[in-house]
């Protein structure tokens, strides 16, 4: 019976089509999984910051995360109580294997090593970021050792 034969072939046809889709989607999913794992393994080097406040006094802090912001806003990672600093003033972020600093459109601007910061710039150990009356000296840790952070 030709029709029964063709019905079986039609079934096989659908199976091939869905095998293609299944395989493609499975591979896409696995790619996503591997990408996620790779990203999870990638750790940013710790950032040691020496914060010199305008009124004198220095605090040291170490950060483990890949992105942090400075500003007067309590939601910032580093809260600076300085009148010349905007609510969200500057952002440090780790991507492309580097730490970058970027001004977030602050009112009084940011200076990096005495020159105004216009575009996102790569940070190196010893760089000095100035915002308002505060200066922050950056040192990038070699390893990602967890160390206790001090409270301001």
């Amino acid at each position, binding site marked *: 019976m030709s029709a029964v034969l063709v019905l079986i072939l*039609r079934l096989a*046809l659908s199976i091939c089509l869905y095998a293609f*889709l299944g*395989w*493609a989607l499975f*591979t896409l999913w696995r790619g996503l999984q591997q990408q996620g794992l790779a990203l999870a393994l990638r750790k940013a080097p710790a950032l040691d910051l020496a914060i010199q406040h305008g009124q004198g006094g220095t605090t040291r802090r170490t950060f483990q995360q890949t992105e942090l912001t400075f500003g007067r806003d309590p939601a910032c990672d580093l809260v600076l109580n300085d009148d010349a600093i905007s609510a969200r003033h500057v952002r440090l972020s780790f991507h492309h294997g580097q730490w970058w600093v970027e001004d977030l459109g602050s009112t009084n601007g940011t200076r990096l090593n005495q020159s105004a910061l216009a575009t996102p710039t790569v940070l190196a150990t010893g760089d000095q970021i100035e915002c308002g009356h505060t200066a922050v000296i950056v040192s990038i840790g070699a390893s990602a050792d967890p160390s206790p952070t001090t409270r301001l």
Partner: protein
Amino acid sequence: MNHPTLRRNLTSFSVAFLLLFSVILTLSPAVRERTWQTDLRWDHWIGFAIWLALFLLVQHLTSRRVPDSDAFLLPTAFLLSGWGLLTVWRLDPYFGARQAIWLTASTLGFFLLLRFPTDLLFLRRYKYLALTGGILLTALTLVFGSNPSGFGPRLWIGGADVYLQPSEPLKLLLVIYLAAYLANRLPAETFESLRAQSLQRVLAIPLIVPTAIMTGISLLILVVQRDLGTASIFLLLYTIILFLATGKRRVLLVTFAGLGLAALVGYFFVDIIHARLEAWLSPWTDPSGRSYQVIQSLLAIANGGLFGRGPGLGSPTLVPVALSDFIYTSIVEETGFLGAAALLTLLGILLTRGAHAALTAPDRFQRLLAGGVTAYLGVQSLLIIGGNLRLLPLTGVTLPFVSYGGSSLLTSFLALALLLRVSSQPEDEPAPLASPRPYTFLVGLFFLGLFASALATGWWAIVRGPDLLTRTDNARRSIADRFVQRGALLDRGNQPITITTLRENIFVREYLYPDLSPLSGYTHPIFGQAGLEASLDGYLRGFQGNPSSLVLWHNLLYGTPPPGLDLRLSIDLDLQRSADRLLGEHVGALILMDSQSGEILALASHPTYDPNKLDETGDSLQTDPNSPLVNRAAQGAYPFGSLLDPLRAARFGQVSGPEAAQLRAFYEELGLYSAPDLRMPVGTASTFGEIENLRVSPLQIALAFSPLSNGGVLAAPRIALAVNTPAQGWVILSASRGPLPVMDEAEALAAAEALRVSEELFWRYGARSSEKEKSFAWFVAGTLPNWQGAPLTLVVLLEEDNASLAMSIGEALLKEALEP
């Protein structure tokens, strides 16, 4: 991601898919005609071979030239184009062969583009030259344009059987131009700060003006050409690329609002837009006119159902332009909702990988380029699929990779080459990206569109499918009739009246007793169905009477109902012949029925017609002033004059006339206010309460008088007695109701005796009536209550003032019926 394994697997699956597709296509004529004694299809194997050779070659060369390119894009695109190629071939081998040639040419173009230097700098540099060239070429169609099909908008350039539609590659050139321009000239500010600015300021940047001008020129040409589908694609591409470059979602909103406004203005002032929108909004009002295409498209999808009819086994050629605009419909009809869902998923994979290539592109130009190309593929696919499904108004654009069309296929493959090119530099760090939101948003929108398309396909194919398929403009019913035996109509002695015979593997309906046609009717591919052929269609077509598992099985195997069932009618062909002979050329009707069982033994309506010659006479029959198509005995409505007086006298006595209310109740009892319920088309009855304007059919009169011969009992009329089922043999079709006693026996006896003629075995009565200068002669007669055989009632109606003729016809037939 393991590229070689992935490529190998995807390649094997797509080759296996198309191989099976080709095998099924080869076998399809045998399935359709249900015999191996037929010509199988072989020609499409050329197409398969060309596709396979190109696919393997392209796989080989791409893995050498751009080894790191995206591993999903190529197999997906080739699966789509192979599926399209074989579908086109299945629809029309000539166009299939052309498509195979175009596929070869497109692959060539694909390679040429892949050979260019990696960074695509040349495209960036010569953007104006390329776009201007494209626009000029498109403008040429205004002067030298032609249309390969000989009519319709002239959007093509060429001759000698090779035509190019310049607006297809122009889409790609526009994408290249916009990507290059915006990557070069948008302010070097970071994306983030651009986002922070207001829309007005972004759009007020004078640098954007040239892009608006270039896009505007392209649009203008397309609008002048009335290629509105492509024009909307251009507008959408422009905004999407602008959106990707600026991240301003409002750009999209403005365009959608603009398109809506344009549609609204077009609806009132531009004929073609009005027609398209009308066909979209209310297709059911004009199914044979401007919405013919979209309705036929929905019917094809409905025919596909969940599993599809199988390659080569549907009837997608019924949809106009199935090759290009409606290829999606063809695919759904033959592979069903399952195939449609797979096709939409393939498109989804293509678009996701396109967006992925855009996100990982090493510079801004390539990112915008890949984004724009992805947008082109997505927008065009969704526009035409949505149009096929009545989700969107119909725009005559092609489905990338799948539809027939050289320019479209070439453009799709060039787009593929660009995507592969952009995706082939994984060692380069992707360009900085402030926010992936525009890209994810765009892909999200496309996914939403694909999902909506899948839902709409399921709606038409599965939810609305069964309803749609019973529509009379579904030509698949008459196609199925050619391959499935339709049940026969037999008389009460199993003599054939209407049968189906096989001629050269095709079933043909034969009407052996054409004079009965006002009752038995016809089934015809153009004129549809009438009479018993229409009212008993369920049994004759095999939907009714067969076990539902058999119906489902045949639907799965062939997409048709199982063989139809024979029906035995109550007609006695010998009496019927006499009735037709006696009535002869006179216009009128005659009914002879068994008063006890309600079975109609003879039913004549003259003039009659020959359904065997419907091809030639069908049109004139419908306009014939004598209306031969009408079954006068059951569908006629005539005044009856004093015909009912004997019945009135029997109920109410001779002297005083009854009150109107009593009379109404009596008429109601006799069934004069209701259409007789039997499996046969009957006319609508007069509304309850009419006395002066009461109109009746001869069938109603025969029923009303039948209690006189049947001891006062009114039997239910019957025409179809039994159906021959495969499982149980002849199964009786019962009457719609039981017998109704309407007079007591003495009353009936007295009435019959009053009408008795000496020396005869029957009672009789005649009357005249008239309406608007037209006179009618009625004659009723029936056996006496003490008659030992089957009691009979007879009614003759002549549409002429000739009572004696009516009487002689009636008496002659009754005497013949009473002779042993």
